[in-house]
């Protein structure tokens, strides 16, 4: 028994199109993570590139295992480091800051120090091998 089907104008309903698209849009909005990589930039010296530098132009910055900082022989609070370094840079613009961290010190303290030096606009930062 064959039934006859009447075909009445085939059209896709477009009125709900916007809603469907909105749903998809919201899904992608929620799942998108625009995770930009950000951090403190640093350029390491090339291997074997060791220069003799006048002692006057070196400012030693030592970090101990508890996160205390010794800048040129004086203990300095980490949060005041930027100000102190900025002053020293005004006095001597050829100053190279040599950061030396104790091998048992935390990476967090090291990053804090580098961040402070960057805030003081110190461009010449040297990373000494920690002993």
């Amino acid at each position, binding site marked *: 028994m064959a039934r006859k089907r009447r075909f009445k104008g085939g059209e896709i309903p477009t009125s709900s199109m916007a809603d469907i698209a909105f749903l998809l*849009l919201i899904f992608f909005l929620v*799942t998108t993570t625009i995770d930009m990589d950000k951090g*403190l930039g*640093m350029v390491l010296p090339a291997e074997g590139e060791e220069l003799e530098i006048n002692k006057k132009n070196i400012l030693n910055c030592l970090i101990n295992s508890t996160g205390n900082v010794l800048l040129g022989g004086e203990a300095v609070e980490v949060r005041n480091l930027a100000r102190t370094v900025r002053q020293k840079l005004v006095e001597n613009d050829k100053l190279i800051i040599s950061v030396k961290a104790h*091998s*048992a010190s*935390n990476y967090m303290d*090291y990053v804090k120090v580098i961040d402070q030096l*960057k805030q003081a606009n110190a461009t010449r930062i040297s990373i000494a091998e920690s002993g």
Partner: protein
Amino acid sequence: MKVNRKTQLDSEIPTASMPDIIFMLLIFFMVTTVLREYSGLPISLPKAKRIEKLKSKRHTSHIWVSKEGLVSIEDKLYSAEGVRHVMYEKRVADPQLVVSLKADERAKMELISDIHTELRKADALKLNYSSKTQVD
């Protein structure tokens, strides 16, 4: 003199092009969505203020360092010495390589220092200490 203003504005937002606009947005988000390929090690990044953004993802390679002292590159664990070979190959393949060091804030400087040395030996000199933005 009175001016008779009877300009009736048709105040309806045209909705006919709405799906097109939304589809455009949709396609934008679909294209920008990155489903993470690998997640690295569980770490909590240190915080810093003077942060720079890394320009391109294509030239970036991550080194994960956990607080236990594990070093991972692209989901494989390495010793500090092993970093050199991997990074050297990457450096040869891409001279513009920037290494993003994703180290836990409690990682020890001894290991970080070893990685510095290895990166110098591998000639991968552009380094970025990955960190979160600090809010005062």
